[in-house]
Each structure stands twice: as structure tokens, then as C-alpha cells.
């Protein structure tokens, strides 16, 4: 089993103090662990479960229930392109194909150099500026293929 850093443990305790029952902090703890390890592998989730005081099965179950907890390893940059209705109407599907070609991977995969993971996501609340995507925590709006090339080129 892995050990969570002092920093992560502190963050988890801070979160736990906000609820009458520390089990409520399980989501916050998974977020904190994901920030530290970049992904939630089974042993990371197990460590979180122990700190929170829930069964491993429960923590694994919660992690798999949510799409923003990465259970597989992901690249340095996770490119999340929205293909829900507003973005699809504005051409997101063409952009998805463009991204696949450009990165040389299929949706759901990571480039061999570990730089980029490409993921199709549901609505990211950017419908007034569709098509839109998020890379890690940065939003990009009113996308075109050229814009995407520029954005990817600027990421090192």
C-alpha cells in the first residue's frame, strides 16, 4: 500500500473537520490523493479508505462511480473535449477526429510519451462558447482546429 504525503493527510483532515461524519470527506480525500498521485490506482484508493475509516470496497466503489476520478493512468495533460449536444451542434465531433489525428491516438487513450490523454466528456457548462474543452483545469472556448493546434503546441 502507498503512503499519502503529510500535505495530503492534512488536506483530508481539514476536509473531514467540515462534516459531522468524517465519511463525508471521502470524496475530498479522493480528490486530494488524485492531486498527489495524478491518478487513483487501487492501492492509492485503499490508502484513502484507511485514512477515512471506510472499507476498501466502499472507496473503490465510490471512485469508479465518478467520471473525474482517474482510475487508469493518464498523461501529463488530460484533454477533455465536450461532445454533448451544444458542442456537437457547433462541430465538436470534427474536432475530436482532429485531436485523434493530431495526437495519433483514439479517444480514451494516452500518447506513448505520456504527455496527452484524450477524453470525450459530457457537458462542461460552456455551451455559450461551444465547442469547448478543458485541459487539466484550464477551459478553452470557441474552438477551431487551428486554435487546438496552437493550444497543444504551447503545452510542454
Amino acid at each position, binding site marked *: 500500500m502507498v503512503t499519502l504525503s503529510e500535505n495530503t493527510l492534512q488536506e483530508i483532515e481539514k476536509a473531514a473537520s467540515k462534516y459531522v461524519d468524517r*465519511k463525508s470527506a471521502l470524496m475530498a480525500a479522493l480528490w486530494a490523493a488524485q492531486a498527489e498521485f495524478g491518478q487513483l490506482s487501487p492501492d492509492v484508493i485503499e490508502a484513502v479508505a484507511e485514512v477515512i475509516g471506510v472499507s476498501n470496497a466502499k472507496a473503490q466503489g465510490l471512485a469508479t462511480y465518478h467520471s473525474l476520478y482517474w482510475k487508469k493512468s493518464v498523461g501529463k495533460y488530460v484533454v477533455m473535449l465536450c461532445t454533448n449536444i451544444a458542442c456537437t*451542434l457547433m462541430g465538436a465531433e470534427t474536432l475530436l477526429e482532429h485531436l485523434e489525428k493530431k495526437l495519433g491516438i483514439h*479517444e480514451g487513450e494516452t500518447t506513448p510519451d505520456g504527455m496527452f490523454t484524450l477524453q470525450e466528456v459530457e457537458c462542461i457548462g460552456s455551451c455559450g462558447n461551444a465547442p469547448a474543452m478543458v485541459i487539466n483545469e484550464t477551459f478553452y472556448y470557441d474552438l477551431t482546429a487551428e486554435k487546438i493546434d496552437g493550444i497543444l503546441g504551447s503545452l510542454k
Partner: protein
Amino acid sequence: MEKILLKNADVPNINDIDVYIANGGYKSLDKAFQMGSTAVLEEVKRSGLRGRGGAWFPAGMKWQFCVEVNKFPKYLIANADEGEPATFKDRPFLEKDPHQLIEGMIVSAYAIGASKGYIYLRGEYPQGYKVLNAAIDQAYKKNMLGNNIKGTDFSFDLAVHRGAGAYICGEASALIESLEGKRGQFRVRPPYMATHGAFGMPTVVNNVETLVNVSHIINGGADWWSSIGSKDSPGPKVFGISGHLQRPGLYELPMGVTLRELIYEHGGGIKDGKELKAVIPGGVSTAMLTPEHLDIKMDVKSLQSAGSAIGSGATTVMSEDACVVHMVWRAMAFFYHESCGRCTPCREGTDWMVKILARIENGEGRTEDLKILEDVCHTIHNNCFCPLGEGAVNPVLSGLKYFRQDFEEHIRTRGCPKGLRARARH
């Protein structure tokens, strides 16, 4: 209309509490404390404020149920999950103008008698997480939150609970399960949330925009507030319009604005001068409508009479360039992805419908497919625990009702006339 809810949209640094106060913020607290909690509750009831999260339940009535329960502490939760596709109306209050939400929550909690609050924030808004937490810290420092707020005997603690991507967690009872650290799944009522909500305590869950309106009701009075909008559903509303429009975006307008005004006046009309084909008035789980419905008012009753619903008021417009079959397939892929899997009709039905819609779109549809789609919809309807399943059938049934010939054409000509394809997701 003079902006009320979005009045701070262009004020720089409005996320800073001093700027917010300098712009008239937190005034409703003084007024509310002066009025007393019962009078605040009565004022909100009298305003006719209805919840803006989708169900449009009268807010004052929901609060009243909770007030009547003699069990403490009580909880007030702001639903900031904003998961209904094409909805982006709460985002300004989460990322730019957080104090408006916090102020609304304090006044609402005071009326309800709630001493604990959470903002359940969707995981997709990381910026909101930072902004809200910083704003809450500031509000504590100014004693707008915490013990004995502004020298009164009212205390209220507030924290942000961050979701991690699951549409169902926006449903109020699933949200509470998720808040408690469990998988967000629908809770069968009774017991009701007014008596057994978060941690078994009396709880009110309200949408962000509902709570934001409360301070304005207190500041301006119920009479002024309800003079805006329509009788059936009064007040101002943030409408998010998207899709094939010249000017998509957020517009604050009175309830009861017509679809025509929304699309042509505010949205600038259809993109590239094309013809309107279809419009989804209130988010993906509401039935789509056609150009014939343009004079319908955006309020609860009018859209219901038209066979649809106002939902979150997220209006998505499709021009003649859109393929309705493709959009219905896309909507169903969403519902399949988001089904929590507990009820067989919802889990299996959405899966089956995605497959059928994909094969129709990709030129492998069969004549009997349309009948199968309808049958699956009827099985889901009334056979599911929660309204997610109910919502999933709306795009299909409305699509078949108004655009059946498009589905038939796909089947007859073995493909999509617009050359689109439904691709499997990894």
C-alpha cells in the same frame, strides 16, 4: 430589463468581499435580521419564488415544511451540480460573483433556521471551487458566516462539497447521499428531506439561482420582485441559450419571455441566416419543440401545456443543418452514461436505445426500430425510481413525434442525409 441577478457580471473583482459590499452586497442581511426569520419566510412565500433547478417547486413551501420540524441542526444545501446538459446559468455565481450566492444562502438559512450549509459543486468547475472557498473565508472574517452573525443570535457555517462527475448527484436526494460520502443514488421518499435529509436531519436543497434570488426579494420586497416575469412563475431568470445561434450565451430576462424573443431578439437569430429546425427549451431531458412553438412563453405552465418543460431554462437551438436523429442519439448516449444502473428499465433501456439510434444514424436501421424505441420509452416511463429515466425518454419521444420522417428517411436511404455518423465511445 435592468439586470438584477447578473448586475455584477462586468464589475471587476466582484469576487472580493469589499468590492461586493461597495456594490451594495450583503445589505439583505441587515434587512432580514430586522424583519425576523418568520417575516423573511413569509416574504419569500408571498413572492411566489419557485425553484430554478428543474422541478419548480415553490421555495417558501419547501422551507415551511422544514421550519415545522423540531429537530436540529438543520441543513441548507445549494445545488451547484449544474449537470443538465446545455445548462450553464449557475456558473457566474460560482466562478465570478460568489458572494451573491453566499448572501442568498445566509438569508435563506436564517428563514429556515438552518445552522449548517453546503454548496454541492460539480467537479467540472475547479475554478469555482477555489473562488467559493476564498469567498467563504472572507465572509467568515467579516462575520457574515460563523457564530452570532453580525451580533445576532443566528449562526451559520458554510462549506463547499466538491462532486466528481455524475449527473445523478444533482438530484436532491442523490446529492445528499453523495454529501454523506456514499455513491449518489436516489433515495425513495418518504421519509422526506424536510425531516430526514443530510445526516438524518431536516434539510432544504435549493438550486443556486433560487437562493441568489432570495436576497433580491428581501431587498426589493416581494411585490416588486413578483411584478417581474409571469404570474405563474414570477421573477427574473438567467437563460442560457446555445446551439445554432448568432449570439449564444447567458441572458437575464423576465420569466415568461417567449422562445421567439429568446432566440431572435436576444440570441440574434439562427446562425448564418439558416432556418430553425428544432429547439430544446429546458435542457436535454425536456421534450424538443418546433418553429410552430415559437410564441410559447418560457414559464412552467406554458411549456407544460406545449408538452415540454422549462427544466433549467437551458435552451438549445438546432438549425436546418442539424440532424435530429444524431442529436437524439447523442442525448441518449449521455443518459446511458449517467444511468446509475439501479433500475433495469433505465439501465438496459438507455443502453438499448443508444444502440438502436446509432444503427439508424449509421444506415443500419430497420423499419421496426421506431416501434421498439417507443416501446422501450413506455417501459422506462413509470418503471423507474428516479426522474433520470423519465428524462431520458423525452428526446426520443419528442423527436419521433415531430421529426418521424427524418428517422424514416435514415432507415429508407440507409444513412444520415447530413453525412454524420454515430461513433462508439471508448
